[in-house]
Structures are given as C-alpha cells and as structure tokens.
C-alpha cells in the first residue's frame, strides 16, 4: 500500500510551496465530499518508496470556525494519513506552534518542517531546531521550501516515522486544565459515539472549548444530561481557579505552551530588525497613498489581463511583421475548424450542429481560456506576494456598507467594473480570494451586472443609433448604473437571501515576499484546467440545446431555392447577348459569385479564369463609382446578388421565427410589450443567454425580414434608427435590460463551479432576469408618460 502524507499548516507558512517542491508537477485536484473546499493531491518517490501527499487547507486552528478547519481535522482523524507534515513558519513561531499543539492533541504521527528559516534570520531570530524537537517530542527539520532546502532530510524523517510509527507525547496544559482533564476524559470515554475516531482527551478539550460540532453531537446523545453536568462542573472549576471562561483558558493554555516553547528555542539578536514588510506597509497601507496605489494596481491588473489575452503580441510569421493575440489565434483556429466542417459535411443539420452548435460553443469557451489564465496568473501573484490582504484592509469599510468585503473589489473590476470591457467569467473565479463563504456568494451574484466586453457591441450599436451626440455621457451613465445596480443588489441579497451575521474580519496581513515562478504557474494552471474540464462539459450540453432551439423545426427551403433560381434566370436573360454570358451559366454562376466576393479565389480553366478576372475588375470599378461606364452585364449581376441576399435573409428570418426560440419570442410578446420589446428583441435576448455577443447577430437576422435592401444595404444601427417603432426610450430600456438580465451560460457554468451548486446558477439567472424586466418595465412605462 502507498504511504500517505498530509501537509498541514497556517496560511502563508509556505505550505503549498513545500508541497509543490515535494510533488513536482505530479498533482491532481479534487474536492472533499460534500463541501466546496478543494484539495490537491500529489505523488512523489521517497528513496524508492511511492507516497501520496495531500495538501490540507491552510488553517490557523482546528476549531469548528470554518469549513477548512473542519475538513482538515476530519481528514486527519478519519483518513489516518501515515504522517502529518506540519509546516511551521519560523519567522512567526508562536502563532504557528499554536496550531502544532492542536495537531499534537489529535495524537497522530507528526513531523515539523521549520520553514522560512531564512526569513527568521533576516528578522534577527535564530531558532534551535534540535531543542524544539526535544521540547515537542517530534522531529523538527529546518527547511527553505522556496529554494528546496532541507527536503531530503524531511523525506528521510517521514520514512523513519512511518517505519517506527512513533506517536508524540500528550500536550501538557496549564495547571487548572490538567486538574479537570483526567476526570472529564474518563466521562467522555463512556460515549464512544461522541468521539468517533477522535481521541477522548481531545474531545474533552473541545467540549471545554465550546466546539460547535461536538456540542451538537453531545446534544444527540441519549444520556447527554449526565455528561453535560460533568462538563459544567469542570467549567465552573476552571473559572474558579483562573477567573476565565473555559474556552479562553484552553486557548491560553495552548498559547502558553506555544510561547514557552518559542521563547526557549529562539535566540534574538540584540536589536530585532524592523522588517521590510513594515516599511512597505507604511506606504501601501498609508491613508492617502494606499488608495492611490490600489487604483494603480487594479488598473495594471486590468491592462495586464486583457492586454495579454486580447492584445496582439504573438508573432504569426517568422519575419515578425504580423502579430495576433491568444484569443485571436484561438478564434482563427475554431473558424478554420468550422470551415473545414462546412466544406466537408454536406448534411445541413449535421453541418450546423457541428459548426454552430459544438465548435461554436467549445470555441467560445476556449476563447475565455486566455483571459482566465492571465487573470489567475495576476491574482496568484497578488495573493502570494501578500498584497490581496492589503486590498481587503483598504477597501473593507467602503464595501461593507453594501454587505460585501474589501476583496470583492477585484472580482467586480475583472468583471468589467472599469467600464471598458472585462468578463464575468474570470470575475466570478476571482472570488477565490474571499475566504468568507457568504461575502463570496454575494460577490458572485452581483459581479455579472458589470459591463463586460460582450455587452459592448450591443451598447455601441444602440448608442450609435440613438445617442450618437452624447456618446461619452451615455457610456458613463451605463457604467454608473451598473455599479449602482450591483451594490444595491448586494445590499438586498445580503439582507434577505444570504442572511446571517457579517463574518468576522480578523485577518492576517502576511509578510510580503517574492512569489516563486513555479508555484505561481502551477497554481494558475490548476485553476485554469479545472475551469476547462468542468465548464466545457456543461457549456457543451447547454449550447447544443440552445442551438436546437434556434435551428428546429426547419422550414421547407424550396421557396428560397426557387427565388434564387428566378433571380438567376432573370440575370441570364439580361446577359444572354453579352460576352460574359458564359460566366453565369449553370455551375459557373456559383464560381463567379465566389470570385466576386473573394477575388482571386477560383482556379478554373484558364480562359474562363481570365474572363472572370476581367469581370470582377469591372464589378469593382462599378462599386467604386456607380456613374462609370460599365457593361450592362455587371449591373445585372450586381442586381442579382442583391436579390439573392434578400431572398436568403428573408428565409433566415422566417426560419428564425419558425424555430422554437422564435415561437417562444412570439409567445412572450404580450409580456415583453410592457417593457417595449417586440418578438425580434425577445429572440435576440433568448439567444443572448448563450453569449451576449449573440444578441447583435440575432437582431440582425430578425430585422432583415421584409426589408427592401436591394438598393441600400444598411447596418443594423441604421435600420433600427429609421424604424418608426424604435426611439430613444426603447433604446435606453433595451440597454438597461441587456446590462442586468441573466449572465451568459459560461458565467453560469463558472457560478456553478464556484458555488458548487446549480441552485445558485439558476437563482442568479432568475433574479437578475426578473430584476431586469421590472426595471425595464418601470423605466419604459414612466418614460411613456413623458415621451
């Protein structure tokens, strides 16, 4: 059987760094059953011996304070790893040893990795590891995880302990505790179901500490009253002796043990140096400079993430004269894949399913990957360096008013809070830095209100059509409204949905340090990979459903084919006498159309090719200047292509109207009219569930019907502008609705992944769509009174 090692320690003790050094890239991400706490497992060879290493969540204590703490202690006693490696930050010995005493209480084999001894030395502290080992009765190995120092010794010590199965001595507490513990332990022993796999003495201590999990368990016992009486007696005795309540007495006793040990093994140089961290904090947390620096960091974060993902910096030729962006490259790849499908698969439904349904959706998910990757990369740097905690410190007061927390600001900014694009998918994922479950949930639920990049094209179109003169003012208003919406919703969600007291904000401001490249990259990769793995499957399924809704049922294509044939016949009659007639006969017509759209694309017979080239040149001349003298045939062809487009567009719209989505859009009209939306907007909005970009395309199709575009092909913004049913009010209402209604499915998948429950993804869709509709209706109805 493979040996199992669990790594435990305080947050910021270098625990994950040590874990990465021990396992290398051989890691896997998993979840604890029933909880959203993620854990990472890794594998390593210790002198020919294969071992499994589990990275437990970083905790300060093992009470029932947070899910992480419960998970960590349950894992240790129920899964019985062969040895616990307790990573102890040597530069912060006392508080780290506090956790160590709690691990010792669990009475399992433990080794201490005395980490960051270099930082302690910089601080002016030298620590005697052998002495510490003697006091605690367990091996203590000095390490510098970031540079891989001390790892061989640690591995050897692990094997040694596993072989000998050495258990640590019991912790000696204060006098008062030692006095009551034997009796209480004995009492607890009578209730094996209370302890489970935990040692009875531990259970007794936890009862004195008012541990919620154990108290709940005690209440379930049949003869709870007997034990309860004994517990009360013990508590009273402690209170009488120490004038403290028992929980404080227990913690004091542990800290007494920890600080005693720390003092005895630490040798301080004469002047304990004021550390670099204190100097940095003096600037970074400064009342005036702090917010300024925060603004700068947030701005850089934004520029970095979107600049790296969407900026053109990857050379696409060896001569370095053309560049593309990661997102652009992925888009090009999926377009290429899609065209491959289109040219090789003839069955229309299969072609559409593959290229629009599957490749389209997988492509759109993959398009998010660079964004997510760079966002995680930057956040990991901020987190590992220690800056995130300062962000929380500076912003907490402001965001607390709305039931959010200092760190929420990062998620909001990444989601598009700067008003110039962004994306809710990495935004939702950026809430990882929030340890408080409730604050995190509320942040996740309001981040999608921010104006993400996908909403921008729709905004741009409507603003161009109706608010062209006050473009900047309108964008500013939309930015302001999105923040107001998010903060108000946060306030009400916290009050009525995610109820409960505000979680305490007792947070360590860790020592700054330069993050290791390896750690950052591994962390980023893990998080990105988890997104791809989980989100891709969900998104694929929903996208196929969305595709089917917009594609089925099909209309008969015969009228369209007939219409095109009639136009072609007309063209042939008009040009029969011209030298170009041969280009419009039978199959040649298709080639001519393609050549006209894409000059130089056709490789046909030499003579025909020459003729076609000449024709296309004439056509281009005609397009450039309608008054130039050109052959009749060119004019006729141009008229033909426009007629053909009208036929195809009309069919596309009729098909859209005929589809399930179209019918749904029609059914919803009586309701949506309150907000001023016609069936065309409804279909577009339904399509927008898949991705907000879809809104524009679908509207384009929906507004193509019955429009005589033969003489004047118009962009959508012009069509809407001249449509008598549209006006500034409708445009504004539509803008607000787009901003507020349901997050796109990729965001939903991210919400599901981050909250662990479909319930929240569905809730997010329902409440934001309802809110959007109510807002739109109110604005529209009030607007009608004045407009």
């Amino acid at each position: 059987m493979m040996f199992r090692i669990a790594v435990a320690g305080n947050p910021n003790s270098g625990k994950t760094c040590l874990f990465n050094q021990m396992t290398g890239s051989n890691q896997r991400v998993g979840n604890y059953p029933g909880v959203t706490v993620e854990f990472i497992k890794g594998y390593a060879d210790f002198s020919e011996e294969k071992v499994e290493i589990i990275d437990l969540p970083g905790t300060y204590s093992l009470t029932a304070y947070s899910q992480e703490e419960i998970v960590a202690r349950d894992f240790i006693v129920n899964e019985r790893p062969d040895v616990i490696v307790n990573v102890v930050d040597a530069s912060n010995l006392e508080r780290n040893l506090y956790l160590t005493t709690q691990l010792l209480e669990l009475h399992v084999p433990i080794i201490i990795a005395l980490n960051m001894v270099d930082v302690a030395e910089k601080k002016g502290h030298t620590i005697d590891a052998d002495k510490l080992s003697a006091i605690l009765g367990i091996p203590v190995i000095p390490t510098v995880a970031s540079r891989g120092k001390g790892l061989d010794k640690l591995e050897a010590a692990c094997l040694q302990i596993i072989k000998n199965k050495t258990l640590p001595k019991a912790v000696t507490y204060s006098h008062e505790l030692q006095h009551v513990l034997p009796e209480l332990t004995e009492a607890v022993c009578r209730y094996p179901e209370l302890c489970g796999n935990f040692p009875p003495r531990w259970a007794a201590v936890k009862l004195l500490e008012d541990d919620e999990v154990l108290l709940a368990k005690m209440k379930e016992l049949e003869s709870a009253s007997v034990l309860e009486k004994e517990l009360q007696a013990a508590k009273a005795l402690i209170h009488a002796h120490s004038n403290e309540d028992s929980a404080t007495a227990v913690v004091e006793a542990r800290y007494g043990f920890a600080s005693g040990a720390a003092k005895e093994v630490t040798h301080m140089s004469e002047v304990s140096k004021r550390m670099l961290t204190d100097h940095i904090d003096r600037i970074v947390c400064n009342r005036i400079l702090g917010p300024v620096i925060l603004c700068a960091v947030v701005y850089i974060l934004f520029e970095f993430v979107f600049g790296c993902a969407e900026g053109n910096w990857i050379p696409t030729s060896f001569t370095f004269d053309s560049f593309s962006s990661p997102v652009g490259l992925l888009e090009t790849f999926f377009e290429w894949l899609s065209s491959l499908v289109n040219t090789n698969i003839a069955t229309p439904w299969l072609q559409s399913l593959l290229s629009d349904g599957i490749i389209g959706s997988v492509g759109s998910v993959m398009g998010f990957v660079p964004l997510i990757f760079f966002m995680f990369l930057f956040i990991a740097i901020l987190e590992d360096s220690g800056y995130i905690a300062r962000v929380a410190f500076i912003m907490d007061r402001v965001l607390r008013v709305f039931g959010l927390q200092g760190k929420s600001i990062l998620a909001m900014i990444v989601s598009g809070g700067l008003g110039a694009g962004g994306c809710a998918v990495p935004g939702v994922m950026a809430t990882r830095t929030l340890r408080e479950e409730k604050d995190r949930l509320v942040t996740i639920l309001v981040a999608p209100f921010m104006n993400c990049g996908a909403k921008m094209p729709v905004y741009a179109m409507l603003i161009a059509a109706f608010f062209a003169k006050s473009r900047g003012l309108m964008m500013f208003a939309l930015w302001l409204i999105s923040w107001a919406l998010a903060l108000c919703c946060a306030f009400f969600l916290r009050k009525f949905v995610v109820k409960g007291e505000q979680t305490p904000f007792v947070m360590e401001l860790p020592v700054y340090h330069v993050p290791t490249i390896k750690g950052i990259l591994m962390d980023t990769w893990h998080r990105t990979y988890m997104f791809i793995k989980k989100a891709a499957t969900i998104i694929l399924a929903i996208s196929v459903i969305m595709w089917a809704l917009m594609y089925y049922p099909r209309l008969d294509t015969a009228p369209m084919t007939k219409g095109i044939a009639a136009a072609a016949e007309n063209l042939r009659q008009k040009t029969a006498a011209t030298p170009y007639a041969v280009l419009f006969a039978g199959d040649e017509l298709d080639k001519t159309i393609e050549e006209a759209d894409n000059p130089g694309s056709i490789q046909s017979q030499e003579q025909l090719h020459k003729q076609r080239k000449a024709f296309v040149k004439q056509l281009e001349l005609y397009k450039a200047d309608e008054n130039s003298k050109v052959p009749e045939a060119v004019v006729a062809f141009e008229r033909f292509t426009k007629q053909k487009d009208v036929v195809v567009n009309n069919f596309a719209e009729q098909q859209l109207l005929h589809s399930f989505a179209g019918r749904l859009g029609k059914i919803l009209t009586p309701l949506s009219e309150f907000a001023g939306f016609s069936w065309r907007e409804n279909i577009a909005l339904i399509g927008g569930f898949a991705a907000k970009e879809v809104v524009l395309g679908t509207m384009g199709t929906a507004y193509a019907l019955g429009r005589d575009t033969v003489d004047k092909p118009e962009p959508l913004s012009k069509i809407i502008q001249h449509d008598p049913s549209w006006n500034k009010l409708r445009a504004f209402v539509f803008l607000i609705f787009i901003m507020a209604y349901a997050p796109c499915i990729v965001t939903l998948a991210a919400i599901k992944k981050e909250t662990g429950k479909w319930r929240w993804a569905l809730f997010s869709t329902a409440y934001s769509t309802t809110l959007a509709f109510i807002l739109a209706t109110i604005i529209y109805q009030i607007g009608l009174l004045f407009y």
Partner: protein
Amino acid sequence: MTLSDTKEGDVVKVVKIKASSAIRQRMLDMGIIPSSEIKVERYAPLRDPIQIKIKGYSLALRVSEGNMVEVEPLA
C-alpha cells in the same frame, strides 16, 4: 478602554474579550488573549479596520471587533 479607542502607535495589553462565540474563538486563535501585548500600527484610510502587531505578526480587524477587546495602556 477598548482596542478601538487607541491611537496609532499605542502599545496596549489585552484585558478581556467580550465577543460572542465565533468571533471570540477567532480572536483567541489569532493570539488576542488576555495579557498579550498589542501595538497599534495604523488605521485604514476610512479609520476602519485597524492594523495591529501581535505576537510578532500583523493582524487587521474591524473597529466593531476592536470594540470587543478590552485593553489597558502598557506603561
């Protein structure tokens, strides 16, 4: 006097924690226990939260939480 009544640069000693269970447990775990020494480093831009130095490390807590920590000045 509570922790929230202190000024930047003050050095105080914890007397008692008057908080309810979860918050108290958290404070105790983080080292805010009777007779431990606290140096008030600074207040955040809006005078909340407070940054303190305790047991050799930096800790931030809200003013509302600082109100629950009774302290006395260390001469």
